């Protein structure tokens, strides 16, 4: 499909703005724009058609089943789109005086109360824009906490699991800590011996996802938290998998001191093809003094923003964070009320149902009941037929399903990480199972059809190696390269896709 720049024609335009007849103000020559930017020039009809056509080439939860493990692709209720567009939210300036933004402050206050209850902890900052930023913020809190105790120079190490999401080690590095990895035992729990060997006075804390990225709840979590707390270290909970345990088990009760929540996962903020998201952090009281400013505080019968926090780490994002995201997630939670527990129950039921029906055809590295998601391995297909997890994923597209996350977690070869979420009907799960079983059969009967999949998408399998080698990252106008006649470099590469 042509780029909008290729549909552009000089002098065409869609938009119109008011023109007041006022004398023109001059920009000093040396600061004035010399060459006009080559933005698209199209009329509104073609603008609408272009983006309608692009949407038609995209797949969302609205289009069908999207079991992308670790991403919790649940239904996004339409009522949330209605309320987030209320003028009182949509057209509110972030620096509006506090007395004129009480509704916004009230919503944030209530959302904080809810998240604290769900996590079993004491204080919340809604500011982080995503889970990764929540991680970074949480680690900054750790540093500030130990600095405050004069242990800044000792507490240098943060431990993560070898199943950890890539953001965990990356956040550790960005926040200036040293990284240490701990192994996973044969039941998918943290290896306690390895752990004991590594935790000491240099340990600042643990970052853990529980249930883990294997979709398994750590059976020794109490022991784990004891090990860290006894060593004077803190525990950080990566909340990406919170959808499994709302109202069932609370991070604070498990012993975690800092939690981030991905509002765009558990609490249904639509992810918009990459974002926005929200990564609020929820902490134990000992960490509250270090939270980012401003804090929403009660003041008489009103609310205000408190900047006067001497020990704060500062700010990690502008204003109070991604407010629109808060509105949607707040609305989502209020629709459920205490039945949030049922949400998690059904998410776990759906996952276990799929697991039970698929375990015969694909390898199951850790044979336990799963939580909201589970990880299969296509290594049996690879061994027997040379069919990889990538091939399975691409072939699923032809059956009208979005593939699961693949090649993650890294400790599982040919990983297929499947998360159905609670909003899918049994009929949908059954149809997915039929497709997965059919693919396993095809692997034996007709492997080539898998290797060349997908066959029914707007494009066939894309050459990712060529993309990386050529690095064509913008339209070149007159000088745009013609990759079609560049040699093929290979096909989609086998690394983590999803999560």
């Amino acid at each position, binding site marked *: 499909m042509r780029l909008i720049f290729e549909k552009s024609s000089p002098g065409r335009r869609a938009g119109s703005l008011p023109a007041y007849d006022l004398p023109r103000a001059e920009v000093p020559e040396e600061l004035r724009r010399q060459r006009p930017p080559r933005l698209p020039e199209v009329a509104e009809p073609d603008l609408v058609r272009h983006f309608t056509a692009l*949407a038609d080439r995209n797949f969302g939860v*609205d289009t069908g089943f999207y079991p992308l493990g670790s991403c919790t692709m649940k239904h996004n209720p339409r009522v949330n789109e209605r309320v987030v567009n209320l003028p009182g939210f949509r057209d509110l300036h972030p620096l509006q005086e506090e007395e004129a933004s009480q509704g916004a402050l009230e919503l944030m206050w209530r959302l904080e109360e809810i998240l604290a209850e769900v996590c079993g902890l004491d204080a919340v900052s809604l500011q982080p824009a995503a889970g990764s930023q929540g991680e970074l913020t949480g680690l900054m809190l750790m540093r500030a906490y130990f600095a405050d105790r004069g242990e800044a120079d000792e507490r240098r190490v943060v431990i993560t699991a070898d199943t950890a999401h890539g953001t965990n080690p990356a956040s550790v*590095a960005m926040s200036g800590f040293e990284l240490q990895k701990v192994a996973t035992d044969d039941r998918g729990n943290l290896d306690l011996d390895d752990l004991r060997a590594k935790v000491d006075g240099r340990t600042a804390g643990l970052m853990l996802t529980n249930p883990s990225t294997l979709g398994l709840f750590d059976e020794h979590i109490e022991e784990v938290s004891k090990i860290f707390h006894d060593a004077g270290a803190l525990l950080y909970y990566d909340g990406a998998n919170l959808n499994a345990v709302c109202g069932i088990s609370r991070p604070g009760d498990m012993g975690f001191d800092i939690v981030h929540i991905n509002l765009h996962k558990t609490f249904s903020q639509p992810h*918009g093809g990459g*974002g926005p998201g929200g990564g609020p952090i929820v902490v134990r009281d000992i960490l509250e003094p270090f939270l980012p400013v401003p804090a929403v505080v009660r003041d008489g019968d009103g609310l205000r923003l408190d900047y006067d926090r001497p020990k704060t780490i500062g700010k990690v994002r502008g204003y109070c964070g991604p407010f629109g995201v808060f509105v949607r997630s707040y609305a989502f939670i209020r629709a459920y009320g205490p*039945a949030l527990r049922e949400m998690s129950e059904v998410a776990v039921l759906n996952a276990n149902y799929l697991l039970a029906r698929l375990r015969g055809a694909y390898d199951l590295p850790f044979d336990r009941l799963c939580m909201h998601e589970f990880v299969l391995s296509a290594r049996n297909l690879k061994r027997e037929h040379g069919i990889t997890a990538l091939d399975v994923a691409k072939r699923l597209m032809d059956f009208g399903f979005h593939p699961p996350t693949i090649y993650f977690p890294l400790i599982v070869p040919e990983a297929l990480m499947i998360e159905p979420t609670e909003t899918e009907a049994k009929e949908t799960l059954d149809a997915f199972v039929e497709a997965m079983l059919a693919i396993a059969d095809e692997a034996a009967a007709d492997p080539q059809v898998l290797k060349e999949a997908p066959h029914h998408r707007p*494009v066939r399998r894309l050459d*990712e190696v060529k993309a990386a080698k050529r690095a064509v990252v913008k339209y070149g106008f007159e000088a745009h390269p013609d990759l079609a006649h560049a040699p093929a470099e290979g096909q989609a590469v086998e690394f983590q896709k999803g999560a």
Partner: protein
Amino acid sequence: MSYLALTDADREEMLATAGVASIDELFRDIPEGVRFRRELDLEPALSEPELVAHLTELAERNVDTGRELSFLGAGVYDHYVPAVVDAVLARGEFLTAYTPYQPEMSQGVLQAIFEYQTAICELTGMDVSNASGYDGTTVAADACFVAKHVTGREKVVLCETVNPQVRQVVKTYAPGFGLEVVEVAHRGGVTDPGDLRDAVADAACVIFQQPNFFGCLEPAPDLAAVANDVEALPVAHVDLVSLGVLEAPGAYGAAIAVGEGQSAGNFQSYGGPHYGFLAARSDFIRRMPGRIVGETTDLSGERGYVLTLQTREQHIRREKATSNITTNQTLLALAGLVHLAWLGPQGLREQGETCMALGEYAKERLGLPLVFPDQTTFKEFAVRVGRSAKDVIRDARARGVHPGYALGRDYGGLDDALLVAVTEKRTPADIDRLAEVLGEVAG
């Protein structure tokens, strides 16, 4: 209300298939000691009409820019967002998609990001743009991280005329990066190249804002030159709306251009979600943080788009990654693309010219002393209101007009200074009304 689809019959059958007797048994691996045994203490569920009524009630406790005549800007602006943006963002295929990990499922959003990257590069005069950062503050911190790795230096120079929100975020991130932050005070509303030269020695980068927080035009080319002279990366923090009339950072030697995208395509929404953009010279392409979309071909040689250069990213490079970012602000960046395509080059230039012309008209009509009389301004300017700007704002609001931002919130000695923003939505008549009200309430 819930969004669950399983009937009781479904549940029975599925439990049986899963080989457990009850829902509770599904959780048997959770140690007894950490099981949550009471009901969550949350307010009762609301039906959809009740939910809408409740949120409407909250929304109406806010005074939005449709309910008072507002001249508040200071980084977030009441620009017009075209209706086509709503229409495109409402498409479920965009709205409810995740990051395009599987390109054959996601050509729509991938091509849109590629188009967005192209538009950002055109506007900033850069070679490569990422798919967006969280907002205009975090992209500045990202730029520091890039600069640190590129230069191996450990100092960041921040002009004091950069949006305070941005500076605060940079200062919060810096320690983790092992960076020290030095600020350069302004002279008469802009940064003096001489002052900058004194501070820039062995800096990784210099961050200046054009137009700056006061709305003043910085001597950007000179500032960039000062930085380049000592091989510190000049990082320009710019407003997309200004780039139809102001020079592209790439054209005056900036190494990296960042900024807050809100003014192109996003509603104010109390500060977010918005998008931050980050673009750089091609030298830094493998140090770029965040997603980047690249062009390629499929098995039949047809053109297509994929997430590329992923070896920079956390899911592959782990602790060695150029950033920890995964979720970004794609939907808001898409809004930006639609908005910019709606405007076109001519529309963008006209918008910039209109904002400037209105600004000059406002300065003249208000007749208040300018805080920085010698500077050219874009869209925004500072005046002295003769008494506490906070009080003036309170009194003006009582008359239905929000006159702007109290600079005293961030700058010493400016308690009587008001920062006034005028977008194309404010008519000359609106400005007359502001003049009238300030005439009544200014000291």
